[in-house]
């Protein structure tokens, strides 16, 4: 023993152990250096990724105004009752404890199970899962029941049943529990008041506000404005991917669709900090949304209203199908464009029920979503005599002063074209005003089909206009291409009967009311046709530098100039004037207004299935500022059904202009006296 205790103090083995200790510690330090200093950004990044969920916040949608700044589409506050799931976690636990007890009892004493269930009192009509379900299912069921108890109670207090679907709720909890669950969408003001006046609000339930699209004038201009649907989840250009998206809308028809990119704005982004369970801890706005740009239209809300009203009054049953278009031929501005029947675009916000969509949009035989002004095709009937007249006059095929004898009908082959004008000897203006079929078949047969087709196309037939809406059609004109595609190959024959049909605007001819309006603009402006203009400018909705306020401007633009001598227009205009002004001859005399020179042409086209009645007009004839086209399906006659509608529109316009003039005069007075 003694000798062993005399070991030297410096034992080399202790040095080995000490060296090894220091080596191990330096391994740890270099490991820590690697993790904490060299890779710290990487770990910070993975921390951020697990802490934050990004949420796309839609921007508030740009507004749409008429030419005087009256809103046609705006945003309103909408209230939702949302459930913040993280604040209910203690309730889930309590509920789960109850059900765990129930489950245990069902295993130990299955005979008492009914009592156990009565004790828990699950909400009515909630099916209790079988006891051998997995704990995962039981937990998810407990969460649902806990929330269901609260929504039932709240529904009772508010007097509205709140539906809580198990699958929808569970999916929300599983996939995006950091976002609140919406219990009630877009509730009424009364319900907002009821909810807020509760003394004891259930925990985790909040009233949240967002903005929703609203169309204050409901059906008015619905086909122009279009409507919205819930936006799909695809990313727009330049948008960053987010974990979640809040409900957003996208235009799927009308200006809402064509100007979607302008109106939508730039969505913002919120960052929600979540805990390990995925519950929301707090939230901050990362990127502020930029509201969409505003549209300023050429539309005049007053005229639009009056035109709508006049159109509705044309049919005592108020089931009118038709269209009214008011245009300024001097710049192509569309002042009103009505199509009936229409729809209320508010129906689609925030969503339309399947039943309602079926009942109001799919089932009716009369289509409501398509615009009769731009999409439906009609036979122009006698209105086409304007084109026949222009073609014959410019071709010198007829002397407008020469009288031609009519016989109350023209027989070609086996078929007779009746003429409602009393047989007699008429010059161009008289025949036009009386809308004599005999006269126009006679002069129309003197020019070639090609000439007529070319003239029609020059005035806008057979081509799709450039209006920024989706609902458009080109119609048909019997040009060479059409004839080729038309008959059995090898028998592409244009008969005299076909030509006669064309002369009175029937047969192989169809057009939309907006095309008729374009033709009238061409006549009014004597060959200069402006492009139709619906949107004047796009403005930023935020106040910015006045220079940058307008982001897009659409000045009037000449579409084309038609090379036809002025004298032709003189005759046509005189004829148009006579049709309205001459109460003895004129078919359109019911549009007449004393002291205001309106010129127009009526039309009534019959096909097997339906009748189309027309009145196409312009005023004042000295220097036309307005073109008004009225089309009504299955009316009586153009003169009796449509002309009065146009008169009402003109009356309103006159009245407004007088108001404007007198206010300008008084303004001028004030400034001169000051």
């Amino acid at each position, binding site marked *: 023993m003694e000798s062993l205790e005399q070991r030297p*103090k410096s*034992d080399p083995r202790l040095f080995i152990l000490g060296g090894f200790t220091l080596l191990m510690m330096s391994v*740890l330090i270099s490991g*820590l*250096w690697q993790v904490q200093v060299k890779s710290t950004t990487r770990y910070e990044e993975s921390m951020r990724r697990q802490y934050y969920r990004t949420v796309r916040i839609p921007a508030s949608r740009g507004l749409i105004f008429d030419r005087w700044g009256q809103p046609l589409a705006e945003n309103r506050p909408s209230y939702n009752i949302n459930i913040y799931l993280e604040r209910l976690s203690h309730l889930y636990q309590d509920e789960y404890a109850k059900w765990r007890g129930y489950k245990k009892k069902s295993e130990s004493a299955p005979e008492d199970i009914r009592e156990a269930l009565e004790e828990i009192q699950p909400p009515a009509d909630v099916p209790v899962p079988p006891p051998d379900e997995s704990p995962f299912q039981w937990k998810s069921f407990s969460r649902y029941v806990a929330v269901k108890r609260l929504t039932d109670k709240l529904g009772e207090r508010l007097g509205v049943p709140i539906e809580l679907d198990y699958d929808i709720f569970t999916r929300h909890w599983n996939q995006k529990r950091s976002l609140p669950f919406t219990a009630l969408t877009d509730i009424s003001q009364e319900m907002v008041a009821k909810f807020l006046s509760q003394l004891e609000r259930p925990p985790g339930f909040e009233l949240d506000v967002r903005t929703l699209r609203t169309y204050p004038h409901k059906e008015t201009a619905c086909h122009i404005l279009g409507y919205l649907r819930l936006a799909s989840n695809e990313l727009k250009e330049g948008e960053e991917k987010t974990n979640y998206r809040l409900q957003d809308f996208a235009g799927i028809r009308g200006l809402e669709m064509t100007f979607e990119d302008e109106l939508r704005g730039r969505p913002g982004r919120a960052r929600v900090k979540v805990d390990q369970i995925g519950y929301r801890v707090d939230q901050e706005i990362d990127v502020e949304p930029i509201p969409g740009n505003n549209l300023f239209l050429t539309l005049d809300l007053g005229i639009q209203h009056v035109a709508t009203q006049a159109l509705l009054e044309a049919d005592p049953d108020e089931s009118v199908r038709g269209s009214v278009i008011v245009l300024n031929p001097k710049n192509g501005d569309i002042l009103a464009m009505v199509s009936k029947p229409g729809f209320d675009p508010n129906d689609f916000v925030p969503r339309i029920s399947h039943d309602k969509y079926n009942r109001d949009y799919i089932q009716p035989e009369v289509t409501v979503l398509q615009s009769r002004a731009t999409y439906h095709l009609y036979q122009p009937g006698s209105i086409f005599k304007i084109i026949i007249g222009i073609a014959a006059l410019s071709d010198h095929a007829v002397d407008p002063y020469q009288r031609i004898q009519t016989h109350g009908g023209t027989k070609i082959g086996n078929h007779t074209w009746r003429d409602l004008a009393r047989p007699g000897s008429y010059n161009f203006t008289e025949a036009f005003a009386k809308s004599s079929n005999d006269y126009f078949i006679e002069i129309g047969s003197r020019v070639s089909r090609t000439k007529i087709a070319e003239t029609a196309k020059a005035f806008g037939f057979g081509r799709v206009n450039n209006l920024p809406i989706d609902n458009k059609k080109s119609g048909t004109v019997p040009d060479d291409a059409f004839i080729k595609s038309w008959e059995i190959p090898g028998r592409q024959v244009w008969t005299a009967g076909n030509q006669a049909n064309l002369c009175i605007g029937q047969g192989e001819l169809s057009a939309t009311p907006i095309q008729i309006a374009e033709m009238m603009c061409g006549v009014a402006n004597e060959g200069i046709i402006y492009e139709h203009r619906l949107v004047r400018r796009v403005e930023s909705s935020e106040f910015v530098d006045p220079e940058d306020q307008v982001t897009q401007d659409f000045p009037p633009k000449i579409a084309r100039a038609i090379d036809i001598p002025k004298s032709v227009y003189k005759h046509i205009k005189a004829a148009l004037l006579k049709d309205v002004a001459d109460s003895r001859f004129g078919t359109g005399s019911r549009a007449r207004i004393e002291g205001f020179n309106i010129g127009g042409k009526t039309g009534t086209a019959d096909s097997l299935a339906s009748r189309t009645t027309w009145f196409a007009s312009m005023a004042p004839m000295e220097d036309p500022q307005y073109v008004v086209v009225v089309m009504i399906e299955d009316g009586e006659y153009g003169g009796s059904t449509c002309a009065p509608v146009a008169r009402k529109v003109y009356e309103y316009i006159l009245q407004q202009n007088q108001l404007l003039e007198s206010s300008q005069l008084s303004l001028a007075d004030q400034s001169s006296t000051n």
Partner: protein
Amino acid sequence: MFAWTLWTAVLCMLVISVLAIYSAKNYQSDQARTAIQHGVYAMIGLGAAGIICLLDYKIIARWSGLAYGVAIILLGLVLVLGVERFGAKRWLNLGFFQFQPSEPTKLAFILFLARFLSVSQDRIQHIRTLLIALIILAVPVLLILAEPDLGSSLVFFPVSLVMMFMGGIPKKFLIWISGMGVGLIAVVLAQALYVAPEWQVFQLEEYQKQRLLTFFNIDFASMEETEEAKRQARELQLDLNYNVRQALISVGSGGMHGKGWLNSEQVALDYLPRSVAHNDFIFSVIAEEKGFVGSVLVIALYSTIMLSGLYIASQSKDLLGKLLASGIITLWLTQIFINIGMNIGLMPVTGLPLPLLSYGGTATISALASIGILQNVYIYRKHI
């Protein structure tokens, strides 16, 4: 007389541990209670260390056989009466205290082996001595392995290897048994991880196997499994990996200077699981809040404790004191390396506590008792 450096480092460590546990329990109702409880355990541990110093270690060592025997009985008891938590029986419920017998067993084992090696010096070259030492090692190891607690049982190997080395067991024997040991571990690991179950001789518990697979980043599912099985296996793997991944995020996001005391975001948002943040993963809380600087400070304090222990070993006049001190230091070194290594992904997940820092009564009291033994060796170094 008094090992000043050692005690200064230990007291610093205790203060750090109470603060760290308080922070790891942030936002929980038992935050203050847990921290105070840990402080109380530390006091008890310090008292135990004081009591140990009352008697010369040479006298205490005579009773080491009894201590070893009691420890073995307790390990047996825990297998019969133990409280089962997380699929393992490691604790005895004493009503007021959850007692973990494997912790004091480590000390009893060191005492007993030191005593055995020091009294067997005249036949230390003999293979019988080695075999007896191996039996002393095997009994607690097998009992702890049966709980099962692989991590705690593995700690015994480096401790006994170092003690045998210090005690004069011939080097060729040591090389031979450590070679065998390493070979055995390699074979066990390899066949557990790669050999089909029906051919396995030694079988690891499923959770141990999964932890190891996770650590070596091997897919749980074999190639021929269905897509669904593979997906489930990946999810499970991610789940098991979860604690380590979160610990790494804590440590890594701490950066150079850390986020400050009570500012661990991983704790605040519950990503670092509540059940482990204040014990097995306490280091990642310190590393996140105090950064690299804090981590290095902790390691420096540990190094101070261990080097002080080595100094005490060198000052000891007899082999028994040297063996005790070096055994205790190896025990600390092993636990520190495995635990911190686990926190930074260097080591697979094992349930080993970090001495003095981790929350836990038995472990803290044992750790301080082991410091008491070091102090004892220092006090009685000259008395023979």
